[in-house]
């Protein structure tokens, strides 16, 4: 399957926010389900070399979640509470990475699911952090995971070229 869809990240220097936007060739209901059902989300959230394990995943107003991303011996835990689930339009939740030296570095995430013509969907996530340093650290951590993914793909490509 080829996809012309590209992820857009907007993070202005010195601001508390990050915006992540992406379109999908699938109806809004399906995309929404992929975000809110544990057996679906474990199949896509995180790069391929990360195994996602769900400990708690209760997507309803006032619910909560906790999950693990594991890469080799490295474990990355995340958790948050669900402020609002408005199927299939909107999710508002908190997000905290448990790997910081102290707890309390929480982001507020709002994801909107917009139905587009031709059974397509656009999602827009706004994450607001408590400080610019928090935002930049979180992006740095995500970036490292992304870089690893890039390396893995490069390795695969090089292996394929050998054959």
């Amino acid at each position, binding site marked *: *399957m080829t*996809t012309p*869809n*590209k*992820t*857009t*990240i907007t*993070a202005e*220097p*010195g601001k508390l926010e990050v915006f*992540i936007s*992406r379109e*999908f*060739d*699938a109806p809004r209901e*399906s*995309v929404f*389900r*992929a975000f*809110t*059902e*544990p*057996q*679906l989300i*474990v*199949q*896509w*959230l*995180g*790069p*391929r070399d990360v*195994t*996602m*394990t*769900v*400990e*708690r*995943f*209760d*997507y309803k107003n006032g619910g909560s979640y906790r999950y693990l991303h594991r890469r080799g011996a490295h474990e990355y835990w995340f958790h948050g509470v669900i402020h609002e689930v408005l199927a299939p339009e909107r999710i508002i939740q908190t997000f905290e990475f448990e*790997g*910081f*030296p102290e707890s309390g*570095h929480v982001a507020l995430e709002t994801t909107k699911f917009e139905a587009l013509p031709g059974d397509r969907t656009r999602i827009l996530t706004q994450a607001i952090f408590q400080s*610019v*340093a*928090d935002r*930049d*650290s979180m*992006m*740095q*951590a*995500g*970036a*490292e*995971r*992304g*870089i690893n*993914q*890039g390396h893995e793909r490069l390795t695969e490509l090089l292996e394929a070229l050998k054959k």
Partner: protein
Amino acid sequence: MTPILKLHNHTVVDTLSQAFAALCDPTRRAILHRLTQSAATVSELAEPFAISQQAISKHLAYLENAGLIAKKRCGREHVCTLEPRTIRQVADWAEAYRTFWEASYERLDVLLEQMKSQATAFPRNANLPIGGGRLLHPGANRNLHPAARGRLNSKFPSAKAKLHPKRKKKS
């Protein structure tokens, strides 16, 4: 700005922290923007701003310290130029973060395609304690935390038996 996380590549992080701290200021961003057009002397850079040349010099020192610009002596003047390597690092950093999400969303593309073509293997089943419903395939169960898996199995003891035959073969 001290990075909160312990990171593997300290050199990159330090450069980035300094660069981002430098980019936090609108005057310094305006100076960088001016330098994208051409190199400029300190007095040329000071001209459009309603602040003293001394204040501009402070901003320039900050930018130079962060590795975003370079200053060279040219006669009696200092000429400033952009330092593309650091700018590139900042751009790469944002690109790497995008790559993380792109990697996830590419997997989501695949999942959404599967949901379209094998609707029966992805039954809608709301109001369940862990949110999802029956096991979609044995692999999905493996990815659940043991505690969650226990809850799921006790609630749906025959979940595996109910799997779609096509999905079963694939595992």
